[in-house]
């Protein structure tokens, strides 16, 4: 493929030389400055919007950011004291379900792909291609899968918390596989060779050397995957996170449930001002949880990651 690289280099050299010869880059200092300003503008638009999203939710939701929000159940009668306790508990249960499902599955898959897989085999390439594609499948398609196979169909769980957990687990599986692979890859080969030279088997090497060294990376990846799952709304709408539940979920496998994002969605689409304020307050809670999770992930990454 060096020919392609040479092609690019030749073409670039020709363009640049032509610009020098016909003088089109002389006296054009302002062009560079304008170009840079446009680039800065591009990135500023993104950042300003981020700030606006946070601030707008914060100032809209501020009046309802009180203890009632956490203490009370959702109510359409007492709008001024309605809370979202059932939604918070629903989300907590959902996330526990996601964590216990996706971590063993994702970490095992990552170990296989990094330590055992032979990349010349067609099925390994198929698995890798498949994971790359799954990461970009729209989340609502996972909702359809959940509805057809988990809520109904082969698993037939019904509209319960774990059906939601399982659907979200499939959704974030690629994330956790990719981050765990990176963590495993960053353990230097010399560690493995030293362990094997002392007579350890391959699995003992992975279990006693590679995995302990990559725990911080795996934990960071897990938190990032959970923070993606916690904000997902669309698939939950399909697998039965109904929007109006006034009691906490009974268990993982029984009873209707709701979740923070679906509750926010339900409030956001109601025309009354009180519900808008409630939706904004819910967004603040959700974003607060996300910020804590992300900070934790960054902290773990900086504090525990070993440099070899």
């Amino acid at each position, binding site marked *: *493929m060096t020919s*392609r*690289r040479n092609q690019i*280099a030749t073409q*670039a050299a020709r*363009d*640049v030389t032509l610009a*020098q010869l016909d003088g089109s*880059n002389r006296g054009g200092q302002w062009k*560079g400055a304008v170009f*840079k300003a*446009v*680039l800065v503008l*591009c*990135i500023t638009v993104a*950042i300003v919007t*981020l700030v606006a*999203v946070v601030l*707008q*939710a914060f100032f*809209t939701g501020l009046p309802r950011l009180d203890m009632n929000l956490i203490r009370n159940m959702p109510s359409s009668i007492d709008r001024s004291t309605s809370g979202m306790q059932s939604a918070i508990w629903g989300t907590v249960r959902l996330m526990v379900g996601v964590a216990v499902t996706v971590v063993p599955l*994702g970490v*095992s*898959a990552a170990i*296989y792909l990094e330590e055992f897989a032979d990349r010349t085999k067609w*099925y390994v390439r198929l698995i890798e291609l*498949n994971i*790359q*594609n*799954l990461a*970009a*499948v*729209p*989340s*609502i*398609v*996972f909702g*359809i*899968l959940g*509805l*057809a*196979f988990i809520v109904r169909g082969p698993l037939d769980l019904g509209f319960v918390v774990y059906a939601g957990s399982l659907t979200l687990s499939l959704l974030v*599986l690629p994330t956790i*596989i990719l981050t765990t692979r990176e963590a495993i890859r960053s353990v230097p080969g010399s560690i493995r060779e030293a362990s094997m030279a002392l007579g350890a088997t391959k*699995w003992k090497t992975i279990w006693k050397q590679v995995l302990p060294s990559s725990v911080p990376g795996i934990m960071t990846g897990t938190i990032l995957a959970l*923070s993606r799952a916690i*904000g997902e*709304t*669309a698939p939950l*709408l*399909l697998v*039965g996170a*109904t*929007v109006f539940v006034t009691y906490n979920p009974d268990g993982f496998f029984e009873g209707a449930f709701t979740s923070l994002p679906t509750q926010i*969605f339900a409030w*956001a689409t109601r025309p009354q001002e009180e519900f*808008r304020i409630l939706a*904004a307050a819910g967004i603040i809670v959700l974003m607060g949880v*996300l910020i804590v999770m992300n900070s934790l992930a*960054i902290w773990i990454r900086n504090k525990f990651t070993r440099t070899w």
Partner: protein
Amino acid sequence: MSTAAPPTDRTRPDQIDLTASSPRWGEKAIVGWLFLCAAFSVLVTVGIVFALVEPTLEFFSRVSLGEFFSFDEWAPTFQPPAFGVGRIVAGTLNVTFYALLIALPAGLGAAIYLSEYASPRAKRILKPVLEVLEGVPTVAYGFFALTFITPIIRELWPTFLPGALGDPPGIFSAASAGLVMGIMIIPTVASVSQDAMSAVPASLREAAYGIGSTRMQVATKVVVPAALSGIVASFILGISRAVGETMIVLIAAGATPNLTLLPNESVLTMTAFIAQASTGDIATGTITYYTVFAVGSLLFVSTLVLNMISIALVRRYREAYE
């Protein structure tokens, strides 16, 4: 020391036996389990396909292909029902178009800035900010579009524009959803593009600087062409994300299956239809239930094609430079 006796007492076997002393069944079982976990991801895709195929076939046994792939009317829950999917495909394309109008140039600009201009310090700050932007729940973006952007564009709409384009949008509009979705996609486009630009060898840049190019020339004439396949991949991934996004359009774009590309009208997208029709418990066996799967199939196939093109393009630049 005087007479060197040959070491006859130490005999060396001709062949050293290096095979394992035991068959290590436990180890093999573990590898088998790990393989199953990796293969499970393929099962997920197979599951998606199976979940979609059967109800979709059932749908087409009741509704003809010609009726589905038309622009006539979209009213699957009405009596009599109508299934002109062209209407909601147009809705998806409408919002996607306005989203990309923002996301592609801004994403590319941000990538060039991060790759060619930003100091390491600026990069350390800006990259995590973009990651946070990518992690904002889409329901929060939807709320922002409906309660912040919509009032602004209704107020500031250029009413001097000719014809229907001059009418200020209503509470739900493609413009509001498209605008916010565009900003949501900027980090996706920026991070994939920037990866491609970082893979361009420094020697190419240095050669261009060496013959007297400016920074802007290096960026536009050397780095962008050299990273082109990665940039195109990021664009296609951006399209795929826009087509598949649900919450923003569900909240801010409305639910009217208008056949229009005007930004000031309310539109129904494929994703919004699926979410709307299946919120709560829809009865299995009804035509609405099967319609959800038929639209889901169309959505899955179109994003699958886009993702595959994007993955192939990323591989191309990886092969060229790594």
